[in-house]
């Protein structure tokens, strides 16, 4: 029975011509050691555009991304991807705050991803070259991935995520250790992905980056959303006290 309901609600959404939300979190709670680290989170992300997730250290941003990628399950509440409760993992890509690269060359890391994402063997070499070029990694292609610098590793992780041609791209501070040039390159990759129809959710502590990329800002504090605001308004005048304090550089309590 529930199946029918899901399918019907799907249909009605398609018929009404409104794309279903990329992802919906409803009263999501995630606890560890009796502490609610994500504490009744409600959030709906539309299927398009770039949403930037901001908030102080320990606010629960990375946990929220891992919940959205289906890597951890909420203790309470529901998460829906395109209206259903199972994560379509091959179309959801996550770039971790600390890049995890395989013990192989850069090239082999990307080939592994293309294979895992089901790209046909014949199409792999060309896609591989594209990805290498995108990340400005062509010259590093045959280096062992784990001897690269932090920023180079982050670039590999970023283009590896793009190998999935994801519908939902979750980025956890992907430019935190990049130089300005590499940051600009990654930002342009993010714009391209968003323009190509991917939903991007980006965590950053850099207000400038937020201003450059965001359509809307979600502000998180103590595992709760304090506000969801259009980008230009947020940086002019955030509505929540927590966001005002964060932007002005004061400690939150």
């Amino acid at each position, binding site marked *: 029975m529930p199946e029918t309901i899901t399918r019907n609600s799907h249909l009605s959404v398609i018929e009404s011509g409104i794309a279903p939300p990329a992802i919906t979190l409803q009263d999501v709670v995630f606890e560890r050691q009796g502490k609610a680290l994500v504490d009744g989170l409600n959030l709906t992300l539309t299927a398009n555009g770039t949403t930037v997730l901001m908030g102080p250290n320990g606010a629960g941003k990375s946990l929220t991304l891992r919940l959205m*990628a289906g890597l951890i399950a909420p203790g309470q509440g529901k998460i829906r991807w395109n209206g259903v409760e199972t994560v379509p993992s091959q179309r959801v890509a*996550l770039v*971790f705050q600390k890049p995890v690269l395989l013990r*192989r060359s850069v090239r082999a890391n990307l080939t592994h991803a293309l294979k*895992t*994402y089901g790209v046909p063997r014949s199409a792999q070499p060309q896609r591989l070259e594209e990805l290498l070029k995108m990340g400005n990694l062509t010259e590093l292609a045959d280096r062992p991935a*784990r001897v690269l610098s932090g920023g180079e590793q982050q670039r590999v992780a970023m283009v590896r995520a793009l190998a999935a041609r994801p519908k939902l791209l979750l980025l956890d501070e992907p430019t935190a250790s990049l130089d300005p040039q590499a940051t600009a390159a990654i930002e342009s990759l993010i714009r391209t992905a968003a323009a190509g129809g991917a939903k991007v959710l980006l965590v950053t502590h850099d207000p400038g980056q937020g201003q450059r990329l965001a359509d809307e800002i979600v502000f998180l504090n103590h595992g709760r959303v304090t506000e969801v605001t259009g980008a230009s308004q947020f940086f002019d005048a955030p509505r929540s006290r927590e966001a005002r304090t964060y932007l002005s550089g004061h400690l939150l309590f």
Partner: protein
Amino acid sequence: MQDFGAAFGQAFALIAGFDPALMEIISLSMRVTFSAVLIACLIGLPLGAVLAVGRFPGRGALVVLVSALMGLPPVVVGLAVYLMLSAAGPLGVLQLLYTPTAMIIAQAILVTPIIASLTRQVVEDMHGEYDELLRSMGTSRVSTVATLLWDARYSLLTAALAGLGRALAEVGAVMIVGGNINHVTRVMTTAIALETSKGALALALGLGIILVGLSILVNAGLMGLRKSAERLAYA
């Protein structure tokens, strides 16, 4: 002392002259040891990986059992295999006792727990690191295991070499199930034991020198592997 020096001289002469008796023993040793380690790898690698990644009832007990089996005394393994293969034993009809096959079986039993246990440890650590990445990519269970085994290749080779070292130096088990029969089941370690007891020091020393050389080679291989794994950050 005179004798001793002479024995050394003769030993080197045997090695340098590729003495047929010496070569026969060495080649059987190699055949038995490499076959045993190969079999141990074929069983131990997947077993270790399943123990590392799998979640099933009895897993904990199995992990403890496998690590306990690492310290099996070779003579006890020899005895157990002897009982299985002896004419009155359950596998007596196969008539394998006192053949190289029996020695391979005994050594494989000795080495499998070592390889399985080391594999489990290495793959489990790596799984902790890769788990979320691989799940976020929607990796299937089978290719998760394949990815982990491949990425652990340096450590797994190390484990295989450790198994090789143990099998090569082992004497108790192969003595019991092989019987140290000349031209049939005589390997380096059993030959050294016998020749020494007979006072035929030249052959014993020659074999001993080769055995030490091989052991140094295995350890050099281990060190080389570790070094290049570190250099490539694949450790």
